[in-house]
């Protein structure tokens, strides 16, 4: 160690630095959560009086239910489609060597570099040129354009660590192509597919710029939040904001729990 050991003073400074970063990152979110419990109609900080009425309103409001439903539907469909396509795409990206691979790898990443606002506008122009009426369904496609490359990258990371000899060995030991896929390929790549699905869902769930252009008359939660901030603030804004954040956090926790359970189940599967 020698030169690499840090003095007690340095350690203390480091702790302060990390603490400052955490406060900077999380205080605004805490402020939103606090505001959602405020009695006031206007966003003021610090909060003078606490109340949960906005949550009651949120849970009973039909329009909020519609918003949630639209956001959820879009995110769920985007997740399913993007995971299936990204899985196959990741195999082409990282596993198989084929003629157009390098070009494919570059083209695939292109949408990520486009500002989403520009991408959304471009898609909207296309929809109107082709005469496709915009709705949450066109938003699904718009989300996919941007999310699919990211999900492909996420799954590719797992595919890069895949040893093709695993499949060959299974095949050599008598497995059919389907058994190889079910027993080896899928379970080995499963963590990557899983995180690809999580990314897809969360990126769609929180997406604003693409939805803004492409949902037409439908509205997702981020869109609604923005609209209310621009005109007609209601305390439902921080309330819904907090709810969507908590929802996303619950999803992540649930995912983590699922991974743990699957691991335990696998170990127990043959009595090990």
């Amino acid at each position, binding site marked *: 160690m020698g030169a690499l050991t840090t003095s007690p003073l340095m350690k203390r400074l480091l702790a302060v630095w990390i603490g400052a970063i955490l406060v900077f990152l999380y205080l605004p979110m805490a402020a939103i959560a606090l505001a959602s419990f405020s009695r006031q109609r206007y966003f003021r900080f610090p909060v003078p009086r606490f109340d949960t009425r906005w949550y009651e309103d949120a849970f009973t409001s039909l329009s909020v239910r519609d918003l949630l439903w639209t956001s959820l539907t879009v995110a769920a469909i985007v997740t399913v489609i993007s995971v299936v396509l990204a899985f196959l795409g990741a195999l082409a990206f990282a596993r198989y060597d084929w003629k157009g691979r390098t070009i494919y790898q570059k083209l695939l990443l292109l949408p990520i570099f486009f500002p989403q606002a520009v991408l959304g506008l471009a898609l909207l122009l296309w929809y109107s040129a082709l005469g496709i009426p915009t709705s949450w369904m066109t938003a699904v496609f718009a989300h996919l354009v941007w999310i699919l490359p990211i999900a492909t990258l996420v799954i590719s990371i797992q595919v890069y660590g895949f*040893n093709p*000899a*695993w499949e*060959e*060995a*299974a*095949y*050599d*030991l*008598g*497995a*059919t192509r389907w*058994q190889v896929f079910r*027993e*080896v390929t899928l*379970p*080995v790549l*499963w963590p990557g597919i899983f995180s690809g699905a999580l990314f897809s869902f969360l990126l769609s769930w929180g997406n604003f710029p693409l939805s803004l252009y492409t949902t037409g008359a439908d509205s997702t939660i981020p869109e609604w939040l923005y609209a209310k901030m621009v005109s007609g603030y209601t305390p439902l804004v921080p309330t819904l904001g907090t709810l969507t954040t908590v929802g996303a956090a619950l999803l992540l926790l649930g995912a983590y729990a699922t991974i743990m359970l699957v691991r335990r189940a*696998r*170990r127990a*599967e*043959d*009595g*090990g």
Partner: protein
Amino acid sequence: MNSATPATTESAAPILRLQNVDKLFGDFVAVERVNLDIREGEFFTIVGPSGSGKTTLIRMLVGMDKPSDGNILLRGTRINDVPANKRPTCMVFQSLALFPHKTVGQNIEFPLKIRGVPPAERRGRCERLLQQLHLPQDYYGKAVGKCSGGEQQRVALARALAFDPEILFFDEPLSAIDYRLRKALEKELKDIHRETGKTFVYITHSLEEAMVMSDRIAIMRGGRVVQVGTPDEIYNRPRNRFVSEFMGEVNVLEVARDGDRLRDGASGALLQGPAMPEGFTKGFLVIRPEAFRFLNGTADATPNRLEGRLYNEYSLGSRMQYQVHVGGGVFLVEKLREQRYQGQLDDSVTIGWDPAEAMLFEE
């Protein structure tokens, strides 16, 4: 044939026969006109440097690739087009290819699970294999990633044995293992071969490794089989300079015919070699380091004497090796430790050897 080798019936039909097997990748000929007979129950090793075609060959034998031409016959039946998962053979991979998401037990039971063997029976077979391969029973539920290199070798072997193959192939599984463990595992593998009585076909780039384990060895170079024989035959009667050099450190002299003797190109010395083949003009004289003697005065009557300087000494454990400079040539001399040279570096020394102990090759 090696006296310690279990008797194999020479006349019996081979379990695996290769007839004029070719493999081309585009214009590149990876394997050319290979003919081999592998006998039931033998430990057969295919040895060659990288690029010699041995990996391509074994992939065809396992069913991972198809020959471009020729036949592969398993007990007389042509199996060229039978895919790997339909063949009664299997392979231990170079990377071992243990399934990382499965436990030791699940890996070993994999071929049984594929065949639909009930879990209880699978477990029993797995426990017997763990015992046979000296793995603790509580490894059953252990993650393969937590096993040491040697343990992973045993798990891979157990998984292949669980398949109960008619021929078990090995694709250099020991190449990534450190020297001492590799030496131990080579012997262990030969013991397993004895216990199971199965036909083992092994490929490696190390002739030394092949020598330890094999009943018979085939040596490959540039896609062709150069020589097939028992370890004794390969060691005592290498067919060409390539095979003799492949064995380890040897002295190679570029020689030309000079009457009934040989002229060494590097030192200019006139030497007497073994019997020259018909029409021999020039070639290579190969002398093993252990064939040399240090000569004292003229007491020794050998016609081959070279005077030089003792340049350096290396200790190889039970043996000692010496580098002797003769004119422009460098010679390696090896002696048992008890017969080591008594003297100092830079001594003038005379080395000699019996003409019959050297090997003469035209190529």
